[in-house]
């Protein structure tokens, strides 16, 4: 018989409940009304859309899974994925802001913060008055997350942080960042720990915004720490918990990136279908050509498969079951579908698809990074293979 598969038997809800449907409608309506008119411009001009973000604050976009007692909407993971998917279907850069804030900045507070830290930070994070960032990546620590060089040295009741973080999503606007830094443990061991660092702490400096291929409306930047003094009370979890917090957080973040990739793919397919119906060549719509129909069939099939895989990971998470392997599968698959589908969408548009006149050009650029951040596709395969192989050995 074959290799035992880590995919556990569980009832999948193929029909979304009314609540999920309304959440999708609500996010879609907002995205189409508020984001669609500005998406192309904020991409080109690299503008973080403050007005739209302010409207989103009042609607709980920044406290999607935060419990009600802290001012959040207490949504389940499928709902959260649906929201990110719908934002990204229209404007992936805003989808990115929301998924990073909720998925990797707020989530570690929910999982690892003590009562005081929750009390201090969660209400502001949930309201969106404080925007969060997650800062692991450094010049020499990307896929190899264990190679962090930034340091945090104990000084009285504080830690002094020194080092540089790069490619920080939301970096240009974040008010609170979770910073991974090396700390010394007993017996001279060096292990990473996570610190809650406010942008107003002296020694917290932002770099220029990155000029990136896609997701250009998100203010991605470097963060510099020069003798930045952080109170001991802002240590998240225990000293040396960095790797544990990082991996758990990335598992969750991958659901968000998968949702984002799925939304990009969906948006690109819809644009391509619309164009294929309208565009006339050889005196008929190109949608009547079998080649184009094959493209559309493949896009729709892969998007459906991607969506089911993503919701499967969400369902496991909501059930309290381990979901890391499935989150990696969803992230790997959704992001590769996003790249393929946006490529086909450009192809269906022909020369126009290569022009900024049409949205698919932006979708095409936005899709690529979903195969890179929050763990490259190569790292996802490593995670999945490890899960499969460790099971088969048992």
């Amino acid at each position, binding site marked *: 018989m074959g290799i035992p598969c880590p995919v556990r038997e569980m009832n999948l809800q193929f029909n979304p409940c009314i609540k999920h449907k309304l959440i999708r409608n609500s996010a879609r309506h907002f995205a189409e009304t508020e984001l669609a008119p500005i998406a192309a411009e904020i991409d080109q001009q690299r503008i973080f859309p403050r007005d739209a973000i302010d409207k989103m604050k009042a609607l709980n976009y920044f406290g999607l899974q935060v419990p009600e007692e802290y001012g959040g909407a207490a*949504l389940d993971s499928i709902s959260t994925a649906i929201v990110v998917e719908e934002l990204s279907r229209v404007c992936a850069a805003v989808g990115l802001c929301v998924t990073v804030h909720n998925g990797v900045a707020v989530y570690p507070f929910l999982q690892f913060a003590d009562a005081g830290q929750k009390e201090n930070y969660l209400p502001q994070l949930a309201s969106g008055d404080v925007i969060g960032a997650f800062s692991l990546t450094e010049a020499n620590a990307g896929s190899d997350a264990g190679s962090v060089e930034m340091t945090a040295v104990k000084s009285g009741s504080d830690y002094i942080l020194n080092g540089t973080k790069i490619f920080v999503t939301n970096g240009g606007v974040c008010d609170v960042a979770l910073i991974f830094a090396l700390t010394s443990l007993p017996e001279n061991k060096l292990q990473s720990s996570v610190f809650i660092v406010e942008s107003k702490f002296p020694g917290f400096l932002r770099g220029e915004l990155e000029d990136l291929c896609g997701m250009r409306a998100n203010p991605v930047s470097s963060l510099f720490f020069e003798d930045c003094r952080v109170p001991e009370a802002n240590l998240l979890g225990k000293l040396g918990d960095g790797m544990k917090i990082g991996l758990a957080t990335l598992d969750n973040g991958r659901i968000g990136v998968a949702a984002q990739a799925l939304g990009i793919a969906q948006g690109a397919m819809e644009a391509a279908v619309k164009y294929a119906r309208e565009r006339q060549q050889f005196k008929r719509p190109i949608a009547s050509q079998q080649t184009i129909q094959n493209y559309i069939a493949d896009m729709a099939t892969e998007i459906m498969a991607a969506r089911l895989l993503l919701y499967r990971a969400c369902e496991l998470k909501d059930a309290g079951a381990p979901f890391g392997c499935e989150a990696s599968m969803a992230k790997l698959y959704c992001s590769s579908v996003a790249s393929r589908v946006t490529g086909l969408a450009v192809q269906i548009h022909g020369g126009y698809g290569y022009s900024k006149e049409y949205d698919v050009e932006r979708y095409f650029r936005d899709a690529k990074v979903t195969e890179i951040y929050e763990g490259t596709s190569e790292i996802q395969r490593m995670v999945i293979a490890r899960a499969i192989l460790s099971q088969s050995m048992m």
Partner: protein
Amino acid sequence: MLNIVVCIKQVPMVTELPWDEKSGTLRRDLAAGMMNPACKHAVEAALQIKENLGASITVMTMGPPAAEEVLREALAMGADRGVLICDRILAGADTYATSFILASAIRKKCPSFDLILCGAYTSDSETAQVGPQLAEELNMPAAAYAENIEVNSKMLRVRRLVDHFRETLEMELPALVTVSMERYQPRYASFSGLDKAFTRAGISVLNAEKLGISSDDLAGQGSRTRVRKVFIRKAQKGNVMITGAAARAASEFLDRYEGKIGAAIGKSIEAKK
């Protein structure tokens, strides 16, 4: 505190829908549903009154089980409770039967109402009749197509645009107002509102039996109007190419279109040809 009832309707999300040629009704089963836009404005009007004066808002709809969606949406926006009137024998009700059923449900569930709000018209059938007919059923004053509503505990002042005149009407409560889409831009429902619409607020379901209505009173035989014919209005544009020598082309052009040109400018051009 005012007691407000908002009657809302679920309509198909797309405008071009297939219809059942026999019954002349739309195939609503083939489209995703949404809250009728004018009804959403009516909900918003109720919420603004609630914010100013304090009010308890009941949203009510008649439809298939899926119509629960629009009630949940209204609850998410801030309404207090929902009533779903749902029974197979109500299917196909015309505006007369619908207003009769709504009146029965309002008498049963909210007998002490002060104000009833409806959308001015629906995007699917656009009769704009249910609101005014409901006011007749309940024997109370009504104003249709309101763009602004001012209310105190006893009186209602409504501003509306009719036949290019803006008029202001006053009436005593209880009253019924249908809300146009001029003002009252509907708010977005927050996600915590959506969550609470499922965990906190309640929806009660009424069928014909609970309303004490028999099938004879109602749709099918009970409806007094019959749709005789439904058709899609077709407008077509096309280019006509007239080729050949200029004089002959001009002459052919006039032969073809002199009637239309004459009608457009209001006099015959035949003599000048």
